[in-house]
């Protein structure tokens, strides 16, 4: 049993809904109690979708449990077929229906419908939303994909690819898809199928006709892409086209897979490199940034923040346990401990301990950052209505890199403002810990009064003089905790039990970056 305040991912059947709702002419019959229909509003409210997701719920109640819930399922599936006339039906259970073991797959097969029926086994007590999405996409591909049409191998044809991974309720999938489609088209590559977003069952049957697969979101598409590689020999991309370097690496990889040259002037809209080099960005140097999100977005954000904007990564983590290895490798390269957890309370503790100046996370980290008084930008699902902006706002490609520059920088205090606060700490308007003036002053984080005597490891104690305590207050609030700890550690290592202003500055020189 796990205590959960907020959850990063929904149950696996919500992942299956994201696939069904992304596709066309597919219907999902879900064996589930009433109440599970809440999931519809994720689509109609958060994403502002103008049609209901193509899902029929059996909505059984307690009184049905003594009777025939299997019959209820069969009726629901039959009615859904008659009403919606889909080209393929996917069927499965939510968490409660899993416990009553009605076997929706077998029941639906017994109906003898004239369309493919794809049963899903999504263990709700072990797995979560992204896994459910990936598994559903894989099952659909396995059922529907046919061997390659040899006519597509004719000489003189342009190289072609599928784009795999975009779904409904994905973080900026709509705009990423537009950006990457334009990029691939500019490279002279034909797009065979985009899936699951916008794909019909007929499109899914043609997946094998492409020369290779672009895996846009590994969380959703990597199982399917690996199966396509094993079965039909289609190679797949590994690079995430996020940030300038990421996009360059992606272009290079695609060019190799397609056997073509990288076209010139493909970077003509990339503004991030100059924005980062322009002198006003100097103040971003070494800004302490904590990053948490799905694995792909978190790893990419760390690379952009550190190597393209010049910040310092002080924490990196993910809730995607399936991608723990990738996060560990990335964290090692920044010399930080990887944080792999789906426990919101653990993330909160880790952020507070790292004392970052900027948090890049999901909507959940936005709350943590707000409470700690630290600026925050959202870079990953779980999604919120604000993550579906009306404007074009991709994360991928060169325009995506431009968007990321703005996203990371705008929550921060501007350079000169930060300097003035550093100089005039008692200023009544530019107070310590207050939000940047262009964002309206939200309540600053209140620091608890510091204890004068602290017990450190091994029971030894150090005391701060009043002057040293005052001097400590002049250090910016977001690094003050760290400065306090470092000074105490420094003092203890030297056998000093009394910290005065001298000790503070000696420690500062010792640990200076």
């Amino acid at each position, binding site marked *: 049993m796990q205590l959960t305040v*907020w959850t990063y991912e929904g149950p696996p059947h919500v992942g299956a809904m994201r696939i069904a709702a992304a596709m066309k002419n597919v219907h999902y019959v879900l064996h589930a109690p009433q109440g599970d229909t809440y999931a519809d509003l994720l689509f109609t409210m958060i994403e502002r979708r103008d049609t209901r997701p193509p899902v029929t719920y059996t909505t059984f109640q307690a009184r049905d449990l003594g009777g025939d819930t299997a019959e209820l399922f069969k009726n629901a599936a039959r009615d859904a077929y008659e009403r919606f006339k889909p080209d393929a039906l996917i069927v499965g259970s939510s968490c409660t229906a899993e416990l009553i073991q009605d076997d929706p797959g077998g029941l639906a097969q017994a109906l003898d419908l004239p369309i493919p029926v794809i049963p899903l086994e999504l263990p709700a007590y072990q797995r979560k939303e992204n896994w459910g999405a990936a598994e559903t996409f894989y099952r659909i591909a396995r059922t529907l994909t046919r061997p390659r049409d040899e006519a597509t191998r004719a000489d003189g044809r342009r190289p072609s690819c599928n784009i795999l991974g975009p779904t409904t309720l994905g973080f900026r999938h709509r705009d990423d898809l537009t950006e990457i489609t334009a990029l691939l088209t500019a490279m002279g590559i034909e797009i065979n199928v985009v899936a699951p977003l916008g794909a019909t069952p007929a499109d899914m049957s043609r997946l094998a006709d492409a020369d290779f697969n672009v895996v846009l979101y590994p969380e959703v598409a990597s199982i399917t892409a690996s199966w396509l590689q094993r079965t039909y020999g289609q190679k797949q991309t590994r690079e995430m086209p996020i940030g300038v370097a990421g996009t360059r690496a992606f272009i290079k990889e695609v060019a190799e897979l397609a056997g073509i040259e990288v076209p010139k002037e493909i970077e003509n809209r990339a503004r991030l490199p100059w924005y980062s080099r322009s002198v006003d960005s100097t103040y971003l140097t070494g800004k302490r940034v904590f990053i948490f999100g799905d694995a792909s977005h978190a790893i990419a954000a760390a690379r952009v923040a550190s190597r393209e904007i010049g910040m310092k990564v002080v924490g990196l983590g993910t809730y995607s346990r399936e991608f723990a290895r990738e996060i560990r490798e990335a964290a090692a390269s920044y010399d930080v401990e990887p944080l792999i957890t789906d426990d919101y309370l653990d993330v909160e503790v880790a952020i507070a301990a790292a004392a970052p100046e900027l948090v890049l996370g999901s909507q959940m980290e936005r709350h943590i950052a707000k409470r700690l008084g630290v600026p925050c930008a959202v870079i990953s699902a779980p999604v919120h209505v604000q993550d579906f902006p009306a404007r074009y706002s991709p994360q991928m490609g060169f325009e995506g890199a431009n968007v990321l520059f703005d996203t990371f920088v705008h929550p921060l205090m501007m350079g000169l403002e930060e300097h003035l606060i550093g100089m005039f700490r008692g200023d009544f308007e530019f107070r310590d810990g207050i939000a940047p003036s262009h964002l309206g002053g939200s309540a600053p984080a209140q620091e608890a009064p510091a204890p004068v005597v602290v017990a450190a490891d091994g029971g030894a104690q150090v005391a701060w003089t009043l002057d040293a305590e005052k001097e400590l207050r002049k250090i910016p609030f977001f690094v003050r905790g760290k400065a306090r700890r470092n000074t105490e550690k420094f003092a203890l290592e030297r056998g000093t039990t009394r910290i005065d202003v001298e000790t503070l500055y000696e420690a500062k020189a010792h640990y200076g970056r």
Partner: protein
Amino acid sequence: MSLPLCDDRPGPSLRQERGQREVFCGLTGIVWLHRKIQDAFFLVVGSRTCAHLIQSAAGVMIFAEPRFATAIIEERDLAGLADIDAELDCVVGRLIERRPDIKMLFLVGSCPSEVIKLDLSRAAQRLSQTLMPQVRVLSYSGSGIETTFTQGEDACLAALVAQCAPMPEQAEPSLLVVGALADAVEDQFRRYFEQMGLTRVDFLPARHAADMPAIGPKTRFLLAQPFLSDTARALEERGAIHIPALFPLGVEGTEAWLRAAATVFNVGEQVFQNTISSAIARAEASLHRAREKLAGRSLFFFPDSQLEVPIARFLSRELGMELTEIGVPYLHRRHLAAELDLLPDHVQIVEGQDVEQQLDRCRALKPDLTVCGLGLANPLEAEGFSTKWSIELVFTPVQGFEQAADLAELFTRPLMRRALLEV
């Protein structure tokens, strides 16, 4: 088949329908109950779906540290690899340690916990023994297989009633108002009762765990919400006496509701009029403006909160709207008897739901305004229908004279907005 609901006139008729229900489960009530009882914590014992539902249902992520959480049942709990009681004790221990301010803990049952027959009332007793007097532990079920949306509040309050202290035999009769109300509305009602000379008035739930009212045969209770059948039954089992009344929605409903209490407590007519006359005059003046916008407009209700019948009565009688279909998840005929009597002839009430067929009927009827849940609102808007999301009827202070115009405004706004937009 439609059945008549009134003996003496054509009246509204009732049809029952079965099929896909597009409604929340009772867990959703936690969203407002945890704000109402300020030192209570709600721990759902359920699945990741339950946690995801509460998080998504009302966009509640505005509360960075809410007083609710989910103990998520995992594979090893189901497989018997873990002692589920020990696991629950451990989760509760961690919770209480983190939130020492909690005085009352509700263990809330869910679909999975009901299906595996997890006995939460026994768990609550066991935990109460170790945690009292600091924390009282109660349990109820908000599962979707047993409860629809607002029935979660009913189950919660029924559990609270069982824990309320007995009222001394020699006590004077006292009034109990049952059902969570916005604090501002509760304060208004309290003032009216004071002006009428009623000194012993309690509200259930109280705002703090320690202030829950005593209950006994001298308790006379008014229901503030139409979805409290189990709570009413629990109160009656303890000897409390129900005061039947309209629900306090609109001027007519509020006046009748207050009058029912005034009659039971022998408040003189002059005192009663002095208490309410200025509020009624204010409310009627502001309703007049809304009436101009709503009169003659047709209205269709999808089932949601069980507030549908009293709200339909208000919109039809005080604002002149034309009722088409009134969908309700469940119809409590005794508590709604007075309300049903006031509905116009030939109104179709549909209990239960088959959402696809109901959508077909709604499209055929082309109502001017459709009241529906969040899953249906945007799709219907995209088809050209004006909609009012029903969850707002639960999350907005709408009861009482001073809120009558606010309630009306919830219905005028979608129509005005549609007229306003040029794109």
